[in-house]
């Protein structure tokens, strides 16, 4: 059994889910902080 497809699949899952978490956390933070700043300026 060739081990590399399993190694590549495991790394792909780990990297994809970590990147998705970071993008989601960053996006939600930016959206909320922009909304709070906009409301403060009003």
């Amino acid at each position: 059994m060739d081990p590399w497809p399993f190694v590549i699949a495991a790394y792909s899952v780990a990297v994809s889910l970590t990147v998705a978490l970071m993008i989601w956390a960053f996006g939600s933070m930016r959206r909320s902080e922009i909304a709070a700043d906009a409301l403060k300026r009003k």
Partner: protein
Amino acid sequence: MHALANPARFLRFARPATTWLLLIGLALAVVGMIAGLTLTPPDYLQGETVRILYIHVPSAWLGMAGWVGIAAASVSQLVWRHPLAAVAGRAVAPAGATFAAICLITGSIWGRPTWGTWWEWDGRLTSMLVLFFLYLGYIALASAERERGGDGRIAAIYGLVGAINLPIIHYSVLWWRTLHQGQSIGLNGSTIDESILWPLPLTMIGFTCLFGAATLMRIRAELAQNKVEARMRRMGT
């Protein structure tokens, strides 16, 4: 901890900390993974599949550490009424759930060539799956409680009760010796050869920094949301 109870003071610390954790975490995780994929030798028994170790072990550690964070926030909420405790608990949960999921999926992928099966109802695997479901329950309960204007006490009690699963996960490989291997890294050292082990601290610290950055970003998002909601309430009255 109480020095950071003031949201404005907390944000003065959190803004630079988020950037530093992101940069250091990204650098260490990438270098550790590249080293683990290209520079270390294959294991004499497992061959190339041992390279899954560099992502599986950090994700297992962070899946469990996330719930330790929830339990600590729960104690802080119930005992000291720390104003940021409920926010911190809600912020840790998505990162903890993500790493618990990564641990389960990479473990399953590692299991197929090593054990000949994708899944087995073994003590370690099952208790880790229970932890993932506990995260989902916590996320649902804490968001429902927040939407209804609760103070987070119900989610805090759930967080403390769920912590009973942590020693079960830790000792599962001793209590039920089935398929998952026993502990190979402990406080007294490791049974893994140094030539294979050395990139592991890089990915451990790297992913931990990314976990910290994601948590801080979620806390900042919720503090900003709270500010918007408070302002809207004042404008409405």
